[in-house]
């Protein structure tokens, strides 16, 4: 059979925050990262739920760490998919945040079946990555070729933005520095930092004084975008607030679906249990 008759399969990692029902619906393969508390290791969202993760983050004294999937984890997925297709697109989170990209790339060389695999470092994370992957999955099911999908992802990447607001620097300080967010540490009055991802790195955007002001900032950010193609709201342990955000954002994006998800552990270890995040894919 010729490749052009087969649907390209899309693979991403669990830090895309794509929920399992969305993944199932779109036929996406999500490779879980590992979350580790001391000697205990869990596969993200398979062996530990997001709720459990944040509960332990706030209640345990052990500092959790996340580990990239092994090349073998990717290989297993590639081999399985290679039975159904001869083209696979893998889109991973920013390699500045994790070695997942390297694992995905490494596994590519280990596949023995005749299957073309392209691996892209999205320079994104959370639903900023999720929205791009969802877009690619939809295009794939409409028959886009692997080359077209690679092009589509590269073009969508710079249009995808994630903004996070949270209320304590405690976790950020405990985890050492991430990117340029170091500048936020050591503030002598309490602040709610607003972070974004720039060039694949966590970068401070500004600071506000209260949670409410943080939510306002997120809403205003979205409202200022002239054309929205995709929108997602995420929380860690505060679904009510996420619900409120969706309510406030619906008038800005009346025609589309606002995805609701939870912030992945790799970011969660830094921003803590009260993070609120929005991801926007700007329209072309």
């Amino acid at each position, binding site marked *: 059979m010729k490749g052009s008759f087969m649907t390209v399969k899309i693979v991403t990692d669990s830090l895309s925050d794509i929920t399992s029902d969305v993944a199932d619906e779109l036929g996406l393969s999500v490779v879980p990262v590992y979350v580790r508390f001391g000697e205990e290791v869990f596969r993200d969202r398979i062996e530990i739920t997001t709720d459990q993760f944040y509960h332990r983050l706030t209640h345990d004294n052990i500092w959790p760490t996340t*580990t990239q999937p092994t090349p073998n984890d990717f290989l297993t997925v590639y081999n399985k998919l290679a039975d159904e297709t001869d083209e696979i697109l893998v889109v991973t989170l920013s390699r500045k945040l994790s070695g997942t990209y390297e694992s995905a790339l490494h596994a590519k060389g280990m596949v023995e079946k005749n299957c073309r695999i392209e691996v892209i470092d999205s320079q994104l994370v959370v639903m900023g990555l999720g929205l791009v992957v969802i877009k690619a999955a939809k295009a794939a099911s409409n028959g886009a070729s692997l080359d077209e999908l690679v092009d589509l992802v590269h073009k969508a990447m710079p249009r995808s933005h994630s903004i996070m607001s949270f209320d304590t620097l405690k976790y950020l300080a405990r985890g050492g520095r*991430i990117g340029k967010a170091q500048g936020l540490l050591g503030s*002598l*009055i309490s602040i709610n930092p607003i972070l974004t991802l720039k060039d694949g790195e966590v970068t401070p955007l500004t600071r506000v*004084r209260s949670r409410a*002001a943080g939510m306002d900032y997120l809403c205003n950010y979205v409202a200022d975008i002239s054309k929205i193609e995709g929108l997602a709201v995420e929380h860690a342990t505060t679904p009510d607030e996420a619900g409120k955000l969706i309510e406030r954002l619906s008038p800005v994006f009346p025609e589309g679906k606002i995805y609701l998800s939870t912030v992945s552990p790799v970011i969660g270890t830094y921003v803590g249990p009260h993070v609120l995040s929005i991801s926007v894919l700007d329209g072309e």
Partner: protein
Amino acid sequence: MKQIDCLTGQDLREMFTAATSWLEKSVQDIDALNVFPVPDGDTGTNMLLTMRSCVDEAYRAPDHSTSAVAQAMARGALMGARGNSGVILSQIWNGFARGLADKESFAGSDLAVALKQASVMAYKGISNPVEGTVLTVVREAAAAAQEQVNKGGTDIISVFEATVNAAAESVANTPSLLPVLREAGVVDAGGQGLFTILEGALRYLKGEVDQMQFRRPQIIVSNISSGARLPQALIADEEPFGYCTEFLVKGKRLKPEKIRARLEKKGESLIVVGDDTTVRVHVHTLEPGGIIKYATSLGTVHQVSIRNMDEQYQDYMELQKERTPAGDIAIVAIVAGDRLADVFRSLGATAIISGGQTMNPSTKDMLSAVDSVVSDKVIILPNNKNIVATANQVQSVTKKTIEVVPTVTIPQGVAALLAFDYEADLEVNAGLMNKARAQVRSIEITKAVRSTKLGELNIKKRQPIGFLDGDMVAVGDTIITVIGQVLDRLDLSKAEVITIYYGADAQPAETEQVSKSILERNPQIQVEIVRGGQPHYHYIISVE
């Protein structure tokens, strides 16, 4: 907790290979700290290059014994040493290897001995050791290792942990030992580099390899208060730095001591290290030619490097420019009170001018602050109504681009500072900050200096009086009642955060009472108490 009693040569090279990668992530940060002996911004790079050569050589060791690997690492460090810090680092490795001589494997106690040797050798290579540098850090770290062993610590991780913790403390303390660091508001770059290497090795030992992949080493922040001056202001009038001259001499019966004595008066920052067959020389001199000529008379000369430090310094200033906390925009704030100044600094103000009510700074004071910052674009926050006009004058006397955000109170200044957008340009930021300034309400409480009548208000001398956004609106018998009166004028239903900055004259018990009275009236509001230490105003309160 993981425990390790004994490590091999294999472990030694692997932990320092990991440490080198760890250091690599921090190179630019360490470069930017570099102000001593010459602010040429290359300490991190030099230490990294030295470490690379060190671990490369480790893999060429004849066998896996600790002593063979350590010796190879010392040799690698010596051969690849670059710069002042690199040469001292190579000397540290030299001592470390001596301390581990004849060891097949090593335990916590051996580590302490090796670190002690490292410290001794580090001092030995230098003609005029200066404290508050990597020398102090290695010495104090080694002492802590020994102390841990004396306490009965046999586990290598516990010994190493004590070493790393002591190194961190030692680095944090460098500004108190070396004035140039204090003035620049940085810790010693070489000390920071050594700490980062040790910390990286420790993390590796503790099995934190995965975390190391996406974290970066932390630059130690000193709690010793500093001037907010940047190096530019420090050395503007000084003499040229000359040339950083480095080379390796190979020969027979070389005498490092003799070479050192001979070069002593030829320049600054002289370091001569090595043995009778290989000697590395590092010196800052105005006349490199004569020194090289002398070296060729001793044996064959290798890896000659002569770098113009004045040029490096210029590059360094460019680097500083990029690293200014607020991108390429500097923020100068006029603030009275040490603690309030710290609040402003912690939020990203680049320079602070001491001033406020009854102490208005001059245009000249502001100009020198504007000149002292590296950026060409400066935002001024006057934080007082009487200072705005002076701030507006600054543009006419400087070539830099100035934006004055006319904040008339401290809360307005804080609100403006917080609204700073790291990604936006000067104009956009001035707009954002102006908008934020207008959204905060400011209450100031002081005591009347004399009796007077103002509008409806009859004021007796020493009576508490309250200002709202700079206008006097309340007088009463106690501070609490005055604050109550001012708050009554505000619609607090939309307020989210109230911050109380208590002044030098405020009593802690009274501050508690103020906070309680606000919370009782408005339980939904988040109240934060911050020591402002400001003169004149007992309380400055922001309502956001």
